[in-house]
């Protein structure tokens, strides 16, 4: 093979590797491997009991991070119910899984409102409320967005927000991204694997 052909072949292989490396690592319809793509879990916020908490408080547990608000009509309750279902399927192991529900509507979602809301889904659910600065840091870190819609005549408003569930391993590293519609059975299988891995 001539030097020129060898160089061309090397270039082609390199381009191929780059193409594969940059592509989304799809695991089934609703799950994406995000290891190395998304920042490790880090935040400072207040939980539903009014205690200041940070990511360090959840080390050793598999963490599911979701952004939503308690007045949400469909997306949030559906997603949280699916997560509760998945955790229930894990049996005793489910105690090592934690769902962090970060409110993107801190104006209406006071600590008390959050507490009532997350308790409905089970003991593994934590409601997190941040100051504007804390919430902004978090949505920048996870590259998600939210915004208030126009209020109706009674002053009620909806908030548009991300639909992703970011799943972190026991050391706080990002592992999986679950899109809305991920079935509880699939989630349970992946969570079991994450609990088993170091």
């Amino acid at each position, binding site marked *: 093979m001539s030097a020129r052909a060898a160089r061309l072949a090397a270039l082609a292989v390199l381009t191929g590797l780059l193409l594969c490396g940059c592509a*989304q690592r799809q695991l089934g319809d609703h799950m994406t491997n995000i290891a190395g793509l998304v920042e490790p879990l880090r935040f400072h916020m207040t939980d539903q009991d009014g205690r200041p908490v940070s990511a360090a408080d959840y080390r050793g547990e598999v963490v599911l991070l979701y952004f939503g608000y308690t007045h949400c009509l469909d997306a949030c309750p559906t997603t949280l119910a699916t997560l509760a279902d998945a955790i229930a399927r894990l049996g005793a192991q489910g105690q090592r899984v934690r769902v962090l529900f970060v409110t993107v509507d801190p104006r209406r979602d006071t600590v008390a409102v959050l507490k009532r809301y997350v308790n409905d889904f089970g003991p593994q659910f934590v409601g997190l409320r941040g100051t504007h600065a804390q919430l902004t840091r978090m949505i920048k870190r996870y590259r998600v*967005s939210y915004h208030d*819609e126009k209020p109706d005549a009674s002053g009620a408003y909806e908030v548009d927000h991300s*639909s992703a569930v970011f799943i972190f391993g026991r050391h706080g590293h990002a592992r999986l991204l679950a*899109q809305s519609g991920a079935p509880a059975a699939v989630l349970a299988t992946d969570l079991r694997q994450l609990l088993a891995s170091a």
Partner: protein
Amino acid sequence: MRFAAYLLPWQFSPTTCALFALALMLYLRGWAVLRGESIHIGWARPSVFLLGLTLNYAVLQTHFDYLAQHMFWIHRLQHLILHHIGPTLLVLSAPVPVLRAGIPDPAWRVLSVRGVRVPLTRLWRALQHPFIAPVLFVGLIYFWLIPSVHFTAMLDQRRYLLMNWSMLIDGILFWWLMLAPREAQGASALGYGVRCIILTAVALPQIVLGAYIALTTQPLYSIYAVCGRAWAISPMLDQQLGGLLTWIPAAMMSAVGGIVVLHHVLAEDRQADAAQAPRAAQPSVGAPA
């Protein structure tokens, strides 16, 4: 949010800010050095250069970047500026003599060392190859718009930066090759005819891709639903607008490029005419009135 907050970076990138500051400082220093040598470049060229620099900076390091991360069509607008409009302005301002004057002598000596100059020249020649340059130009547009690649680029801060910087750098390389006058390109200058062929050749695949995105009836880029859109807009409308931006203004830039090339051709013709004019006039000198 106060107006000033919109001017601050959404996600501060020290590399981006440092590179823009460096470009600005080199240019301003070069401008001052040239003035010191009584070489005046007027106000139009610096204005066009600074406009190009500001546009590129604004789409990367202001609140615009937030919108570009969370709305497909704004992302396409961001790339239209980074890959087409911004670089075109930079190249049209003919910045090389100014930037060259702005490089301090010690830095220029480092750049002139054989070990630095030779690989840089080789890389430059490869990237300015009349086949590689257009393939790279179109290839990058297609590559970052592969749905699975686009997904990770929007999720990962580093890939996102890599994507935007690859567009800006490639934009400058490509439009330099297309729009710089032959005399500015030096020994390896590209002929104007070849440039017209390349400009046409890169327009076609952009039209095809843009039309495909705009006319597809399913959402192609799920990342905007996963991470949330900047404001309420239907996913299909977002995609159609993004497709149109990839299709029409991007391809139109080839027409703009063609006009600039034509301008260079005419300017060279005029110069050639002016050079021949005295000789043509000579026979008439001694001729009886």
